[in-house]
């Protein structure tokens, strides 16, 4: 019975709450309820009865058209997404977020490798026969060797998702039936994501321990600690991105939790700022590394940028919402 109730509720979600519609909705509910009870009396199982009642509901749009009721979002202007397309988008999103997560993880792993090799070279454990110039350039090459496949993954994911760009921009309306199904699945997906988030955060919180332990053994060991920290962060970021992608897809489709049109504008501004700030951070990182040979410490620009940027977007959201 609850299923029928929530089915109907979702069908009426986007409609203006007038008396006429309330009455219609109540009427439809009474009919469905009576049909359900009669089917149960005939000996149908609960699932069967619910299935029959819902399958015999029909198409809400037919009714709305007859009654001259428009939904709140202009469903005529935007393309409608049915359940099949929604599922396709979710599947693709889960694949691409896995790949993007892998790409970001690779870059972080590359930075970790860079610090490791630089430190090992400094401690004269590797590259002993090479000139001091080559000693410091070679590790950077390794970093770039990892950045190349990562960029490849980003571009591949981007082109794959190009077809669904309109979903990112929020210019669509979701078919009523698809909305019902996605809403039902959302709680399961969200709990999966929060599990991923918990693990990721735990790894992040634990990661500085690597530096503390390293510094107990001396200066160069604290650099190795940084390597371990970065690898842990790489794993955490991979978990964040790959588990976040699916629930983000659901939220985008349902236009909730920061993907409603109002918040979408806000995200655009933050996105634009991110587009400037992060490449700048990369430039500073590479500049300090190449020019001053500060590979061991210049990575610190990333967490600093992260914290400052996080602060900025939080402040921006608060100011905007007021």
């Amino acid at each position, binding site marked *: 019975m609850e299923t029928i109730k929530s089915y109907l509720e979702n069908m009426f979600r986007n409609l203006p709450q007038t008396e006429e519609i309330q009455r219609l909705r109540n*009427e439809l509910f009474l009919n469905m309820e*009576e049909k359900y009870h009669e089917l149960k009396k005939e000996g149908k199982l609960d699932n069967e009865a619910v299935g029959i009642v819902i399958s015999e*509901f029909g198409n809400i749009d*037919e*009714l709305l058209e007859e*009654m001259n009721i428009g939904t709140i979002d202009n469903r005529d202007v935007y393309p409608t997404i049915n359940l099949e397309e929604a599922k396709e988008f979710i599947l693709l999103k889960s694949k691409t977020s896995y790949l993007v997560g892998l790409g970001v993880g690779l870059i972080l792993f590359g930075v970790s490798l860079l610090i490791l090799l630089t430190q090992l070279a400094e401690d004269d454990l590797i590259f002993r026969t090479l000139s001091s110039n080559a000693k410091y350039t070679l590790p950077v090459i390794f970093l770039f060797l990892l950045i190349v496949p990562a960029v490849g993954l980003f571009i591949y994911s981007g082109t794959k998702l190009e077809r669904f760009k309109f979903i990112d921009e929020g210019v669509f309306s979701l078919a009523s039936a698809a909305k019902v199904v996605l809403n039902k699945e959302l709680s399961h997906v969200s709990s999966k994501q929060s599990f991923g988030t918990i693990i990721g955060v735990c790894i992040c919180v634990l990661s500085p321990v690597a530096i503390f332990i390293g510094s107990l053994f001396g200066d160069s060991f604290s650099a190795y600690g940084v390597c371990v920290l970065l690898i842990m962060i790489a794993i955490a970021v991979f978990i964040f991105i790959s588990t976040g992608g699916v629930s983000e897809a659901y939220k985008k489709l349902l236009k909730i939790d920061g993907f409603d049109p109002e918040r979408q504008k806000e995200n655009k501004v933050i996105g634009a700022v991110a587009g400037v700030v992060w490449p700048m951070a990369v430039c500073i990182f590479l500049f300090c590394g190449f020019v001053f040979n500060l590979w061991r410490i210049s990575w610190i620009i990333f967490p600093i940028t992260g914290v400052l940027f996080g602060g900025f977007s939080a402040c921006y959201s608060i100011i905007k919402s007021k």
Partner: protein
Amino acid sequence: MISSDVIRGYNDTIILSLLLEGDSYGYEISKNIRAVTDEQYVMKETTLYSAFSRLEKNGYIESYYGEETQGKRRTYFRITQSGMTYYKEKCEEWGLTKKVINKFVKELKDSGDH
């Protein structure tokens, strides 16, 4: 089950014919349609209510709140005078339609036999 496309133009007639036998409400009407047709035609909920809306707009039926039973208050429908006239017109129209279509259906059957 019959395709709803074919029958669409006569949904209103079906409902009016049931209302001729007495006032009724949504589920009862849809149940009666199912029973009369031996489950060969099941009218969807939304089809039924868009027909109600259309019929009421044209003045062929009237709606009123029924007595409250078990805390539930249903909307009942009653056929009007002009609804009855419309029903008769539709019945005549169907008689004609049937004749016309039957001609073609029969001819097709005959030619198939040869």
